[in-house]
């Protein structure tokens, strides 16, 4: 809190009005509706809805289809997060280490941040396309007959690859910034205390990067859960049958394609709870972040 503040009566409310108007109409109202609809089943002919308590939730959670999708979502999130964090960190470490050309490398490596997930997905589709995709031709040399869009595993592979590729720049930027925030004298002291660069990394640099790493961990999980919608939609091309999809995509499918408002809303609420948990963890860790003075 600022030490000195204005005491005006009306102005703060005036200032907050636009933001609150928008938030109420476009956030709280729809969210409340989502929660509300999750307890109802809508008559398919639009003649009203019936209260079913937690049925939508139990139906969704116990459905094998949902569980399969949930398992894929968890695996997908973990794999994407792990890969994109590692690659982002690796590139950041190397970019930090070189002196000549650092800013060029930096510019070239952050470009992909600006690429939208669906565009990434489109380009990915080309690379993994059965007819024209160079990656497909390459792995065919090893006997892997890749059929993205048909084979579950192949499609999952493509989705993961594209999602990882799209997110590397974000992690790269943050890791690089974190690295450059470590005081030079500490790194020099470590150079005098420890011969091996690898050992220096594990014992000094990585521990000092943990605040950044935790933050990115949560961000990446959120990214894999939600922001990759565009990737999945493009790769799956409206043919979700037998293709891997994530939970958020199923919300969209059931809601917009399947017209099952109740189930879709219940799934939305389940996702809300997950996001809530993730964000709370993030804030706890950031507020309680060890300040290394």
């Amino acid at each position, binding site marked *: 809190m600022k030490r000195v503040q204005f*005491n005006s009566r009306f102005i703060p409310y005036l*200032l907050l009005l*636009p933001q609150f108007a928008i938030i109420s109409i476009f956030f709280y109202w729809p969210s409340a509706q989502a929660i509300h609809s999750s307890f109802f089943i809508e008559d398919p002919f639009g003649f009203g809805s019936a209260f079913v308590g937690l049925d939508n939730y139990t139906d969704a959670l116990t459905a094998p289809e949902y569980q399969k999708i949930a398992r894929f979502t968890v695996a997908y999130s973990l794999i994407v997060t792990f890969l994109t964090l590692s690659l982002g960190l690796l590139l950041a470490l190397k970019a930090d280490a070189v002196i000549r050309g650092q800013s060029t490398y*930096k510019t070239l490596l952050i*470009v992909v941040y*600006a690429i939208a997930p669906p565009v990434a997905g489109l380009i990915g589709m*080309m690379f993994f396309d059965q007819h024209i995709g160079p990656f497909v031709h390459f792995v065919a040399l090893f006997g892997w007959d890749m059929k993205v869009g048909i084979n579950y595993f192949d499609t999952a592979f493509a989705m993961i690859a594209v999602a990882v590729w799209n997110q590397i720049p974000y992690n790269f*930027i943050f890791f690089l910034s974190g690295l450059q925030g470590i005081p030079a004298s500490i790194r020099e002291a470590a150079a005098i205390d420890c011969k091996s660069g690898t050992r220096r990394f594990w014992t000094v640099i990585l521990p000092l990067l943990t605040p950044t790493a935790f933050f990115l961990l949560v961000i990446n999980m959120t990214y894999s859960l939600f922001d990759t919608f565009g990737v999945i939609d493009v790769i799956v091309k409206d043919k979700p049958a037998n293709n891997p999809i994530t939970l958020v995509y199923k919300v969209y499918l059931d809601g917009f394609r399947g017209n099952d408002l109740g189930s879709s809303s219940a799934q939305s609420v389940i996702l809300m709870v997950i*996001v809530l948990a993730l964000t709370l963890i993030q804030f706890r860790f950031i507020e309680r972040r060890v300040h290394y003075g």
Partner: protein
Amino acid sequence: MYRTKFFDHLILIAGVILMLGPLVVAFTTSTHTAAEIHSNGLMLSIGGHLEETYGKVLFRKGGFTGEVTGMTMAVNSLILGLGFAIGKIVLSMLAAYAIVYFRFRFATLAFWLIFTTLLLPLEVRIMPSYKVMSELGLLNSHVGLILPLLASATGTFFFRQFFKSVPDELLEAARIDGAGPVKFFIDVLVPLSRTMIAAVFIIMFVYGWNQYLWPMLMTTDESFYTLMRGIKQILQVWVGSQIPDYNEAFAMAVLAMLPPVVVVVIFQSWFIKGLTESDK
């Protein structure tokens, strides 16, 4: 300290190839005809059809109504990007100013209400949001494209953090100089925030331009399609065609990525500053 420089560069170059390679290939491939691509796969060379393909994508009237051109979609994307960025900045600066610089009864409540919007991304409330827009008659409009996206706290938190770092002495000096809240905001705070505004603008513009799910859902009228929607459309046409229009798809992808990439590269330092300082 000195060694392994060679390997460092090697890894970095590999990284650059991995990151930019697909983009380069997307562009070069777009300059060939679809038939060439179908038989030869993705190509690194530059074909002769650059103007033809891009001209078609930009200016040919297509879609179901036969009215929409790539140019129209680009304009819509631009409106979305700019509108969202400007709207975000205005809303969040005002809200952050209120929260940080004013002592009023519901300050804590206001803060938490705004904070909770961080918890739920749009994807989780698309259906009811769609219903609300439909009831308000805002489907298929630019306003409808932009407004729901503004309902989140990201910008507000960013400016809140920045305002908190502004020295108290500035406000005290301004008060002694006779500046009220409005004057202080306009004459002192806004000029001070110039770099932050630029940084937020860039991030929000890219975010708005790259929006996919929401525009896809709420625009059925093709004249409101954004470039992202156009990409989906191209892919929908693909299914079932003999030789998909690879070249046009790539051309559209290149068009769709060009403005954000240019903005990010040119304003790199602001953009990075905005990213790394907003979330910490």
